[in-house]
């Protein structure tokens, strides 16, 4: 059976599964819509959180990035997992005890201020839209490559599916669909990795194969071979980096703190019944995420060796283009691989110096990996379904944040406090539907700066939400003036720095011009520090938080009687 037919079948089966679950788990009340009725088992919640968090970027792009960055790729691995430790230890249990639906709810109540609530709502909506546009694009890419429909059609199909189960099922439908999506995506990620690990090193676990001796009888370990190849071809040694140490430090910290501050991740901890379940959920989520995140660097190094050997040949003299395997020609059609025969010898050659004749896009590494390793067609179809699952699950979670921010935080809590539960649910669905249409439009006509804006979203979350929530829990006297001043200073500084280097003066975006050698990707860390300092200074100069707020903070510190996530 051909790849295309196979892909249609596999993707079709998974879609039918998601829709079936959505029908089974329809939401009847706002509470079911927003937080799944607060009754989800921690393991299921962990899986759903993992699927929610692992986006098309984690599934499709991350291993490719690491493959080209070597050691420096650790910023993503550490950043996107380490944030869960912060979340589990410093945020999740307390926010669960607080027991409202959203992050702006917490900020608004804790800092007794509509201004603070509104600032938080705007940040949440902005961060979520940025993300969701990227996801829709991911769906489009997978569809266009494997099903050969055009990107617009792919995005529309993706929109229709997400629309169906998120608008109908709300958090309840989304949670159970995400559990299924996690299973699909992790299986799709592991199968090719295990196959390739066995072929190359004889180890079943890619995590071990990654450091093992190659099975080709040379007695050389995979990473030594990769270091050797990299140096020979004029790249940097694979196991050491090119970025400055302080920059790596700051990027990692910004991604960690950004993760802990992302509204669609935090809201997950409102869906479990008790504080202890919120603690446990974060552990399960990270375990499920770690399965993919420890496999990714292994895939990265396998793929790099395979790719170099296919293009350059085992003797490193180049492979005749006429004999190039099918995947090179397939991906050439999409423009993601290019070959220019500079020395007119009819052979391809890939290197980091002037001998290079190839342009290989980083995003294809995971999708092309099974083809590079010559695995059967059903594995390739599975990878396509996995990529779609990753993109859909994340989009659904983000759309829910957008719709609750609008219907709950903005309408119910600000503009129209007298609407009934039914009306609020209607507005939530309307907002989700509008959100999908805007996101789909952005997916079809992506603004040229999607990738840059994602870095922006992390920086914003790191420099705004995170310090405000931490101070809100651990410093009970912190006042609204302090928190608002801190958030504005943190966001303002971070946004100005990123906008300057990414949009106003991109030519100046080199390490010599950076503040302390910190790139725009890592500047959220400095913004966060500024937020803490300004918040503390302004708090010291003004009154502390009123008595009843301090009592409320005292109360969220103790788990007993978490109660249901309350409606207002």
């Amino acid at each position: 059976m051909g790849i295309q037919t196979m892909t249609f079948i596999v993707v079709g089966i998974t879609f039918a599964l998601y829709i079936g679950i959505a029908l089974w788990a329809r939401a009847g009340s706002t509470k079911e819509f927003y937080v799944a009725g607060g009754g989800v088992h921690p393991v299921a919640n962990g899986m759903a959180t993992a699927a929610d968090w692992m986006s098309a970027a984690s599934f499709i792009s991350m291993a490719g990035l690491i493959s080209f960055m070597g050691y420096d790729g650790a910023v993503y691995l550490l950043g996107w997992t380490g944030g869960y430790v912060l979340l589990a230890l410093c945020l999740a249990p307390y926010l669960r005890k607080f027991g409202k639906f959203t992050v702006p709810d917490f900020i608004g109540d804790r800092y007794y201020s509509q201004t603070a609530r509104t600032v938080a709502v705007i940040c949440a909506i902005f961060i979520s839209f940025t993300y969701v546009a990227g996801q829709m694009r991911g769906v489009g890419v997978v569809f266009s490559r494997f099903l050969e429909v055009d990107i617009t059609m792919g995005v529309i199909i993706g929109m229709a599916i997400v629309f169906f189960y998120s608008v109908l099922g709300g958090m309840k439908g989304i949670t159970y669909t995400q559990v299924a999506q996690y299973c699909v995506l992790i299986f799709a990620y592991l199968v090719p990795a295990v196959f390739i690990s066995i072929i190359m090193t004889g180890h079943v676990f890619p995590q071990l194969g990654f450091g093992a001796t190659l099975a080709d009888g040379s007695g050389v370990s995979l990473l030594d071979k990769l270091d050797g190849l990299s140096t020979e071809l004029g790249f940097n040694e694979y196991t050491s980096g090119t970025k400055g140490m302080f920059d790596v430090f700051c990027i990692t910290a910004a991604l960690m703190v950004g993760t802990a501050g992302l509204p669609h991740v935090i809201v997950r901890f409102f869906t479990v019944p008790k504080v202890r379940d919120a603690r446990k959920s974060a552990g399960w989520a990270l375990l499920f995420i770690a399965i993919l995140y420890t496999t990714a660097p292994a895939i990265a190094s396998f793929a790099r060796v395979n790719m170099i050997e296919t293009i350059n040949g085992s003797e490193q003299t180049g492979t005749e283009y006429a004999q190039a395997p099918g995947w090179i020609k397939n991906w050439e059609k999409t423009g993601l691989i290019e070959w220019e025969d500079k020395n007119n010898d009819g052979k391809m050659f890939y290197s980091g110096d002037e001998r290079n004749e190839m342009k290989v896009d980083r995003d294809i590494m995971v999708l092309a990996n099974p083809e590079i390793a010559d695995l059967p067609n059903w594995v390739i179809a599975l990878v396509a379904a996995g990529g779609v699952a990753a993109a859909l699950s994340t989009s659904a979670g983000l759309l829910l944040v957008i719709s609750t921010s609008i219907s709950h935080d903005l309408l119910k809590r600000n503009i129209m406090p007298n609407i009934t539960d039914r009306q609020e649910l209607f507005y939530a669905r309307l907002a989700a539907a509008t959100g999908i249409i805007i996101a789909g439009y952005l997916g079809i006509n992506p603004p040229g700066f999607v990738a840059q804006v994602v870095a922006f979203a992390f920086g914003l979350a790191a420099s705004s939400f995170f310090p405000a929530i931490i101070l809100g829990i651990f410093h009970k006297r912190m006042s609204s003036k302090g928190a608002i001043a801190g958030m504005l200073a943190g966001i303002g500084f971070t946004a100005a720095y990123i906008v300057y280097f990414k949009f106003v003066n991109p030519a100046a975006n080199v390490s010599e011009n950076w503040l302390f050698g910190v790139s725009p990707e890592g500047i959220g860390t400095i913004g966060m520090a500024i937020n803490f300092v300004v918040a503390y200074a302004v708090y010291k100069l003004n009154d502390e938080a009123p008595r009843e707020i301090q009592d409320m903070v005292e109360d969220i510190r103790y788990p007993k009687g978490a109660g249901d996530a309350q409606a207002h």
Partner: protein
Amino acid sequence: MAFQSEQQKAAYWRSNISLMLKLLAVWFIVSFGFGILLVDVLNQIPLFGFKLGFWFAQQGAIYVFVLLIFVYVKKMNDIDKEFGVDEE
């Protein structure tokens, strides 16, 4: 209030904070410490075909992260019980 006294309450919060800080110290050491700041030193040490610093940055720290959260869950539940504020 489930606590016997204000002192009990303060003591509960202190044990909570001290556990959190200890675990965060480990979190910092394995990721920022071993994976980034000390990576060049640790890379001199081989571990089953990996350089140790590189292994911490791309594998080891993540395993420790998962462990940390489960240790936290276990210890927090014990503390909750000790102070009688556990849920059921």
